């Protein structure tokens, strides 16, 4: 059970070549091997959405992907969002609107929200709620998060 494999993966623009246990998931790899602890693990069965990040430009649950499956891939995590325009606007609006409390869901929530905006979706509260419904937040009641996403879209259109 301790079999390892070497992978090459680009995370937030930096290239890493690492030996990883073949059964290690991507979230654990990022957190324990690379020290990128901004990706959080909430359920380890793909339901809570906390570990959501971008894998080759598409949102993915990093608890449901083995690190070896990310071999050759481009991964973007919360630590790399600020250089992206959509993400930095969202981060600003999440902050101003208090769209986070404990901060544990935030990385995944931002990923799902960035995806919603990048897909060119409207500032429609019901649509936003539906889109983020795979991301669990125990603190906010979601309203502030919906506000922050809609404000970001409206500002871009404005």
């Amino acid at each position, binding site marked *: 059970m301790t079999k390892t494999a070497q992978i090459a993966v680009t995370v937030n623009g930096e290239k890493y070549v690492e030996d990883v246990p073949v059964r290690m998931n991507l979230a654990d790899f990022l957190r324990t091997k690379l020290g990128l602890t901004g990706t959080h693990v909430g359920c380890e069965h793909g339901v809570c959405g906390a570990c959501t990040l971008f894998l080759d430009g598409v949102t993915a649950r990093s608890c449901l992907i083995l690190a070896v499956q990310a071999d050759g891939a481009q991964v973007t995590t919360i630590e790399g969002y600020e250089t992206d325009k959509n993400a930095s606007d969202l981060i600003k609006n999440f902050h101003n*609107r208090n769209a986070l409390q*404990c901060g*544990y869901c935030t990385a995944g929530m931002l990923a799902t929200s960035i995806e919603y905006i990048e897909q060119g979706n409207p500032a429609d509260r019901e649509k936003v709620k539906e889109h983020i419904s795979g991301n669990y937040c*125990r603190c906010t009641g979601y309203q502030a998060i919906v506000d922050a996403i809609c404000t970001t879209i409206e500002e871009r259109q404005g």
Partner: protein
Amino acid sequence: MSGPATIFDKPRDYIGKSIPRSDAARLLRGQGRYVDDMQLPRMVHAVFLRSPYAHAKINSIDVSEATQATGVIAVYTGKDIAKHVEPYIGVLSHLPGLRSPAQYPLAVDVARWQGEPVAVVVCTSRALGEDALGLINISYEQLPAVTDTLDALSSESPLIHNEYDSNLAWKREVEAGNLEEALAKEDVIIVEKQIKFGRHTGVTLETRATVCDYIPGDDELIMYYAGQAPHMLQFILAKHMNMLEENVRIVAHDVGGSFGIKVHTYGDEIATAIIAKLLRRPVKFTADRLESFVTDIHARDHVVDAKIGVRKDGTIVGMGFNDFTGIGPFSMYPRTSAIECNQILNLTGAPYQFEHYHAVGNVVFQNKTLMCQYRAVGHPIAMAISDCMLEEAARAIGMDPVQIRRKNLIPDDAYPTKSATGMRFDDLSHHACLDKLLTIMDYDALLADQAENRDNGIYRGIGFVSLVEVTNPSPMFYGIGGAPIASQDGATVRLDAAGALHVSSSVTEQGQGTNAILQQIAADVFGVAMERVKVTTGDTATVPYGGGTWASRGAGIGGEAMLLASQALKEQVLDVAAVILQAKPEELDIAYGEVVMKDTGEQKISLGDLAKIVYYRGNELPNDLQPELIATRHYRVTDFPFVFTNGAMAAHVEVDTNTGFIKILHFWAVEDCGRVINPQLVDDQIRGGVVQGIGGALYEECVYDTDGQMQNATMADYLVPMASEMPEITVAHVETYTKTSVLGAKGAGEAGTGGAPAALMNAVNNALAPLDCGMWQMPMTPERVLRALGKIG
């Protein structure tokens, strides 16, 4: 309002403003410091083997194979761990008669719930440790599981603790007036119902986690802690591990949600500390989600037989109930599992004037996960008993639910006053909150919409709740009963050589914005820009002694201590400034980091320059002046046992009578938490609280089978509120400052969770009323709605 002059006699720079939390910037960039993020040199992992049975005798444990497995450093059984710990007992002296046996971190001879730890593997990685768990051989003898709360009290029931004559942990009866006699009168209409409240749990997104490190040279244990009450845990670890209290340091950085779940003593966390000391190296334990579901405390689990008597004009004659609550096999240490029941006995009917009350609470052992204090302890049950019964009574006499409240709510000019149960109230505003609620929700329009839709076979309902919330507790909550839980909190404020403030406080942050409001208060009261205030909380080595954050006390108690300390430092600084400037202290003020003339605002000296004179060039000061640029103050509530927040809430729902689904169309909350320090933070506390209340009312339930096996211990099976089902929540305030403090703030964290379930049950029953059926069980699942409608058997 007249009264003594306070800092609030003039407009404030920061207090009362919606300023974004400065620490959120870090969390938004993935730079949180949660316990599981930590990796210390030589750190190993504690991985627990848990009982698969709800009740079983442990005949033998063979760990020989597991100890040989790859990466394994050590394996300990419950007996091994027990040698290094003084067991704990979850009783308090102010809950007379409460009994619970001594409990060890891991089961020793008998496992009493599914998930109770029985052995622990210490390993170089969590994954290898889980491999090794499979190599531990345990011979169990399964015992009959006691699961149903009512059956547990039958004389036929197996006993969970053989030393007791029954499975009853505690019973309390509260009586005022004479309910039976009063209800027997001719003009009294009596309504009786059995109301059931399911078990649910906190589901903090960050699971429980700890990293414990032991430094042998100092005999020092450091626990990195995802919790709410560092000083309480310091006492507990020291006492039960036989260490000097000062040699135990508890450090809480960021905490990924807590809601009461993480304020208790968990065996796996205590065992992790013991192992760190035994192995003299850092040990991490992080619960996985399955472990969370079966070991984090559960909440609620009540069966209540309730009755209310009203006259035809709507006057409440009295109310009473018999509550049976299941708490698992032990009363949780140190806060006990009887507090929720106690709160229900104390708080039911609290918003209303009535004379006759008779309540009985039965706290019962069962073979399920331990039940203890979770957000809004007891409140959802107490508020549902009084307000759902009140609205049912209103239906029985054909009265509007608002009218019956207006008739019975304690008048806003009646304070100070007492409830029938003896709770002392001051500075409450039930009528003002209800009036504001009706305005913001446009009740008349909703009634018209309801009538119109009913004609089309669409069943919409409007439900209300008037509530109180226990906040800012005095020593009467825990300390009086012998619990090592401080009711006072402290704040230290220090001016550094650059003119910035370093403040620390014994209240803690779990995301609600504690650090932010402490920063706001210190900056505002002392007179610096908020950016120049650095806040430290959560570390017993550096913060003043205090209780931490629970029972909605952070702002009201911790905030007041910060106000007092900031005020004290300001006076000390002005004394020094007066000497330097050859002025009188009362002629001076501090504003935005400058000492200024009070009357003209003219800047005289910056705080940085003043501090540099004090710290570096003391030779410029008179020899008899030894300035103190640091101040500490503590605060506790003395005038009342608790400072009550009150509020009024309403839910608007649509019940699909074909599917049983309940859609929440909108929710409104008006709260009087006294002075609002940061409106945005308070509003979002209320919204988050309401959504947790919605969870308990509609979705969340720990489902057990008769063998005591939890059936839905995954996030796919246990339903939590997700965005698509959540309504918009409109929040408004009435501000009646509490006279118990200068700040005037009451707590705000729990009212939403305490009130929302009653409002929702009332709304559903209001919707179902024309169909001659009702819902009296939470969560109000589609299946239960269809059952109530008679559509399924």
